[in-house]
């Protein structure tokens, strides 16, 4: 009598024998299918889910990952029960770990002055804002003013303040708004306001 293990069913095709695989459902498989074979490697669904999440770094391709995919984090949105879209990860980190950072770029429009302020929406009250002209990089001129960018360290109190800025030849002042979710600033020239026409600027804000 044949053993229950390693049973091969064969069917004669006229010349030799083809192996016939019986129709098997997931419920028939009693041995955990390893991750390397596409299984979950666990005796239960919970174990397999844990194994899959713990071994995601072993996946050879994450090309299918998209911004609306979910992560196995606690729910922080009423619209996504027990799962969190990647787009909410920043909110999650802000809420639970106080990580508040935003960076990006903008192109200068060429205007300056108190009636033509620069403005950035950050979504949090910043502690530090760094703005720099991409092609030049932030530095100081011979009299110590920031040129081609600036570093703003915001006070805990809510009031506007000034930052010494300049160009390579001229000194000036940049007026920074009181810290809020949106920061505004202006100066007496487009260069000192970090708003030269068509120039690319990069910024980093830390809350």
């Amino acid at each position, binding site marked *: 009598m044949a053993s229950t293990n390693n049973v091969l069913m064969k069917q004669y095709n006229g010349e030799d024998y083809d192996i016939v695989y019986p129709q098997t459902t997931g419920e028939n498989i009693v041995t955990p299918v390893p991750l390397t074979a596409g299984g979950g490697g666990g005796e239960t669904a919970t174990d397999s889910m844990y194994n899959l999440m713990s071994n995601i770094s072993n996946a050879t391709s994450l090309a299918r990952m998209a911004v609306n995919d979910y992560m196995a984090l606690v729910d922080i949105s009423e619209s996504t029960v027990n799962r969190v879209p990647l787009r909410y990860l920043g909110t999650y980190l802000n809420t639970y770990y106080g990580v508040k950072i935003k960076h990006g770029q903008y192109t200068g*429009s060429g205007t300056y002055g108190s009636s*033509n302020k620069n403005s*950035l*929406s950050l979504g949090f009250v910043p502690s530090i804002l760094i703005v720099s002209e991409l092609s030049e990089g932030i530095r100081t001129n011979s009299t110590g003013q920031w040129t081609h960018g600036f570093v703003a360290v915001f006070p805990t109190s809510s009031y506007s303040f000034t930052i010494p800025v300049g160009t390579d030849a001229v000194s000036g002042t940049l007026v920074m708004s009181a810290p809020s979710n949106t920061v505004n600033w202006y100066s007496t020239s487009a260069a000192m306001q970090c708003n030269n026409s068509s120039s690319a600027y990069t910024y980093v804000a830390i809350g």
Partner: protein
Amino acid sequence: MMYIVKIEASESGSRPPLQEWNNETPPDGYALCTEEQYATFYSTNPAGFVNITIEDNKVTNIEINQEAIDKYIEEHPYVEPIVEPTTDDVLNALIGYEV
């Protein structure tokens, strides 16, 4: 790439530079802009003098405000920057030395 534009223009009619944005929802006070609208926003020098129409947090129409641009240029004529003298310049002037 998506951008956001400040809904309320400044008193001169200008708007701050467009900001890159990676969310379908703009922050309060801002509206979403497309690449095409970005090109219109920056099509003048100075840029950002545009009138916009907004529906559902999105810019549906953007037009250049030439009158505001002309007024801004009139009020902000180009002035050759006065170069501040260096320490060497000051000392040379004091001793009458010309480079």
